[in-house]
């Protein structure tokens, strides 16, 4: 299987400089090894610190128990699922898994196929916690961009859908997705969709300078 690699850029929060990164359209063993040997210990350190400081669990990183080795094994060889990863500074900075078999719920595009972001997670050191600044910014956006590009590629016209982790609700609204409200069937997570018009706007917008 050949993996396509696109060169992208992330923001080094400490220096304000750009960092060259790779966006890969697969999750391979090297990424899973990074998840296991680098993300997990870093996450544990964060959780221990939060526990020590008495921070309520509702404010903890919300995907701390995800097992990416399990997630990717479950969809191995299935056409319906695709993985994406972002690598920079010799480490995996973010992972995402998408499902291509779902259909839209939003009234203007009901029943049309879209790219559903099943899981999206950035490395623990890229998330702000207890005043500590994240290392790199732009990883989450890159993975979302990849999902939208895949949607275009597959003929789904950029349509996208996801259940937001509560800490990310505002971000999805900010990038122009439609908030379809909390989903009782999905742990009351907020369900967002992106229409093809919103996807076009997302690609054309230059963002902040």
């Amino acid at each position, binding site marked *: 299987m*050949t993996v396509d690699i696109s060169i992208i850029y992330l923001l080094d929060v400490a220096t304000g400089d750009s960092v060259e990164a790779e966006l890969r359209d697969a999750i391979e063993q090297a990424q899973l090894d990074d998840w296991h040997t680098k993300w997990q210990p870093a996450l544990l350190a964060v959780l221990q610190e939060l526990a020590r400081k008495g921070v309520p669990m509702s404010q903890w990183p919300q995907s701390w128990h995800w097992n990416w080795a399990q997630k990717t094994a479950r969809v191995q060889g299935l056409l319906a699922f695709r993985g994406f990863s972002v690598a920079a500074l010799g480490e995996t900075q973010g992972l995402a898994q998408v499902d*291509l*078999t779902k259909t839209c719920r939003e009234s203007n595009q009901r029943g049309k196929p879209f790219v559903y972001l099943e899981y999206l997670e950035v490395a623990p050191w890229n998330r702000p916690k207890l005043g500590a600044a994240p290392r790199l910014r732009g990883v989450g956006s890159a993975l979302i961009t990849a999902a939208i590009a895949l949607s275009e590629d597959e003929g789904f016209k950029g349509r996208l859908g996801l259940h937001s982790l509560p800490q990310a609700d505002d971000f999805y609204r900010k990038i122009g997705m439609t908030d379809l409200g909390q989903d009782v069937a999905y742990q009351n997570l907020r369900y967002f969709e992106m229409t093809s018009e919103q996807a076009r706007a997302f690609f054309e917008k230059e963002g902040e300078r």
Partner: protein
Amino acid sequence: MTGKRTMTLNLTDAEMRVLDELSARKDITKTAVLRQALRLYQTIDARIEKGEKLLFENDTTKEKAELMLL
């Protein structure tokens, strides 16, 4: 990802009509419709092989009906 290969399909009139209908309704090309069908078929088949059952549930009555697939 990888290169694409070409295949010629022989479909009946009825099948072509369904393909056209789905393509229009889903707002995707006929090729995309068939690729979706392939994805769904493979995924469903894989889960049934694992011992799971595919069910349809009536949204109002919550009645479940099994969809038998080979």
